[in-house]
């Protein structure tokens, strides 16, 4: 699965370490939520960055105490129909101020990119090569957004007020 980061195809620097497998001496690792919670100190003491794969049926509250020491959080879309990770992403970004890599994994298709970007994802384990290639073009599909979210784009309600303001200022 190609990784898209900063809107282009990138090399995944994180090594996925299975539960029970030995940790490499250095380098960046991605571990399960259980592994992180079982022994965060050992993990976070070693050289190299740590990322966690957080399941979509576990409240992110348990992750919050470790957030500022994590370099990546991967949220899971077990099927494209299961949208729980969108809520988790927004909570991490907007409520808990997480500013590290937020990665979408699982059934990640181009038709979800806009929703994912708006929810706060900035890295994507894309299922199909063609979708990864189309990323830059696909995320530009919409120029109007109705809801304010943490991605910083001005929602339509507020944009209209701004437009009215500038119109009246120009008169």
């Amino acid at each position, binding site marked *: 699965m190609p990784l898209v980061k900063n809107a282009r195809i990138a090399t995944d620097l994180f090594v996925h370490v299975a539960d029970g497998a030995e940790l490499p001496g250095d380098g960046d690792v991605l571990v399960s939520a259980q592994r992180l919670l079982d022994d965060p100190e050992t993990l976070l003491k070693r050289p190299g960055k740590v990322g966690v794969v957080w399941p979509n049926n576990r*409240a992110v509250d348990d992750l919050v105490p470790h957030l500022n020491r994590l370099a990546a959080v991967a949220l899971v879309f077990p099927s*494209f*129909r*299961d*949208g*729980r990770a*969108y*809520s*988790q992403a*927004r909570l991490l970004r907007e*409520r808990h101020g997480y500013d590290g890599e937020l990665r979408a994994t699982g059934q990640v*298709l181009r*038709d979800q990119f*806009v*929703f*994912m970007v*708006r*929810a706060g994802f900035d890295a994507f384990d894309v299922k199909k090569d*063609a979708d990864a290639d189309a990323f830059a073009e696909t995320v530009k*599909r*919409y*120029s*109007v*957004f*109705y*809801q*304010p*979210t943490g991605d910083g784009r001005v*929602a*339509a*309600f*507020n*944009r*209209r*007020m701004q437009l*009215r303001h500038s119109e009246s200022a120009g008169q």
Partner: protein
Amino acid sequence: MYAYDELDRTLINERVSEFRDQVKRRLSGELTEDEFKMLRLQNGVYLQLHAYMFRVAIPYGTLSSKQLRRLAHVGRRYDRGYGHFTTRQNIQFNWIKLSDLPDALADLADVGIHAMQTSGNNMRNVTSDQWAGVAPGEVEDPRIWSEILRQHTTLHPEFSFLPRKFKIAITASEHDRAAIKVHDIGLRLHKNADGETGFEVLVGGGLGRTPFIGKTIKPFVLGRDILSYVEAILRVYNQYGRRDNIYKARIKILVHELGIEKFSREVDEEWKQMDGGGLTLDHSVVEEVRSRFSYPPYEKLPHMPDELKQAAADPLFERWRKNSVAPHKVQGYSIVTLSLKPVGGPPGDATADQMDAVADLADKYSFGEIRVGHEQNLALPHVAKRDLPKLWRALDRLGLATPNVNLVTDIIACPGLDYCSLANARSIPIAQELTRRFANHDTAEMIGRLHINISGCINACGHHHVGHIGILGVEKNGEEFYQITIGGRADEHAQMGELIGPAVPYAEVADVIEDIVEAYLALRDRPGELFVDTVKRLGVEPFKERVYATR
């Protein structure tokens, strides 16, 4: 009417272009049917028994004449010359080609109509009172808030892949014409003791295989907080709603399993953390939306014009007027309901020619505006009383003046087995047969207000649970049977109907309904007692006895 601005138009056009690309990828095989399914559903496209079915949103039931003409055009150009108005302020086209869909959507987008989220596991078309803005005594026009919610719920980045579909309905009148108690979220606009406008919020109502009446989760949420409160409910539902079993995935099950107290604590907890955030609606934002609703330049007209006095001599006109014309908040005007329930016709169907003609009549007599109600009828919301006789004659020529609104032949019915791949039994032929049985207007008038609702399967698109008489098609050993419930209602006193006994075969349904109606006529305590009130007073037993004694 609400006028879309450049932003709204841009978004709809961007959506059409996205869907055009998705259809292209499906046709080339780049997208599998499984992947495409979710995408087409989000654009209102179902794969039905015979063809693709295309469901178009009519937000809060308001249409301009231009928009209605465009719907007629879509029916004529891409379908078989008609459309079907549904119980959810939508119109469906039943015979459309996948490859034509992007063009049909583009034609609709031209006049500010879309099909976004008319299906799929997301927030559906927000529905409201079809008399919004014209009903006397309304707190304020609920469409302002419907439109705010329509925008907020469209392409929502967090809630486009919910456990199941999600429906919001709003009313601002004491008499609930939006059936808010049987929606996932029902909102009742009212004023608190300080004169502030806000909402009673109900949650967890719904029909289908597990029907529930919605429960009040908050008696009063200020207008400025309604988006954050709805968002808090949705966020709790998105995270904790069941996804293992689609039959248990609706919010009503979550509310039922947790209990309304626990559910409401979860929502409050979430809401507290959102307080004061970006979702709080500025007064100016609400006023900006309000300013884009325009109202007709009503004239100062007499309450009882001469034209109406003269026409009163014609008993046929009077019959129609009493039945189809409702009071308007402005003196000298009326709200006119156009029955889409002619004797022997499929409920809710309109031909493209009828739609064009109604659009012309709306231009002539109703400031170019049309409404669509969940009873599958249309309405002209601003008709000067002096024009009623002329309008009646024109409607009569079009077959749209059947004087049966709210009477026994004003039947709500889903498309049933004739169209729908989910159905177990036919609905339309049952409705047609019943309209023939009760075609005599004098009998129907004597019976009074009586709502028959028919669904061809347990999914309850025909809202059978809340019909005064509900008819539910089921399948037994390959044959069509029908369960009959009585005593349901969808208004402010909403409740589910009660089963009267074993299901009856197709051929007996009309007889059974006649028996029930005859029993009611014998049992009611006075001519004015509604069927549903008689059932409430006496329970189902006497009706059951009448129906099954001889069967």
